[in-house]
């Protein structure tokens, strides 16, 4: 899975507890993303990072926070987990290069996912 490690791979937790998911990359890519995958919704972006300490919200960011203190690590935190956050979470990375002013690479590479159940 393209040098991306997500941990843990599975987690069961209780409502109201904090949860942190980790994404670690060995590719030195600039961009990192957290998505959640739910039936009928495809993948939805939670937060993304465009560099160390540079993060921004995606379309479903409520209830989530992120941090990126090193290029290789991007953490997703659920401050107080709710049952609606039961989902499969995917981390992705990408790099952008330009050639003649045209973006030549926009491919995102995905980790294997973390299955989170909030009871």
């Amino acid at each position, binding site marked *: *899975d393209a040098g*991306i490690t997500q941990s843990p791979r599975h987690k069961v937790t209780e409502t109201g507890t904090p949860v942190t998911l980790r994404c670690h990359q060995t590719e030195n890519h600039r*961009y990192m*993303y957290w*998505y959640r995958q739910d039936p*009928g*919704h*495809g*993948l*939805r*972006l939670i937060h*993304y990072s*465009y560099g160390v300490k*540079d993060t*921004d919200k*995606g379309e479903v960011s409520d209830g989530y926070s992120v941090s990126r203190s090193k290029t290789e690590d991007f953490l997703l935190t659920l401050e107080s987990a709710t049952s609606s956050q039961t989902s499969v979470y*995917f981390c*992705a990375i*990408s790099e*952008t290069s330009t050639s003649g002013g*045209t*973006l*030549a690479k*926009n*491919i*995102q*590479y*995905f*980790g*294997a*996912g973390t299955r989170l159940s909030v009871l």
Partner: protein
Amino acid sequence: AQSVAQPEDQVNVAEGNPLTVKCTYSVSGNPYLFWYVQYPNRGLQFLLKYITGDNLVKGSYGFEAEFNKSQTSFHMKKPSALVSDSALYFCAVRVSYGGATNKLIFGTGTLLAVQP
């Protein structure tokens, strides 16, 4: 609003027959379009992309996709389906958002089932 639509939740095809998985998009500016595949309990794998140039792009595992600007579509095709092609397929379009221009919007996915 920028969006991607995959109108079919599931596509069924017999092995050896051609397959098409449909995707339409709505985005401002020139679209960057992608197809990904997901096998059970795995992350998404990149299949192919359209950035510019020829409207017919070829990707991994014999898949190809045709960009049609007038119909705002990016349907994926394969001349002869294999049972091993059975998986969940996602279409995605790149959008510009804030400081990152690599944000993708995904469709809801199409489950491809190839019968032997």
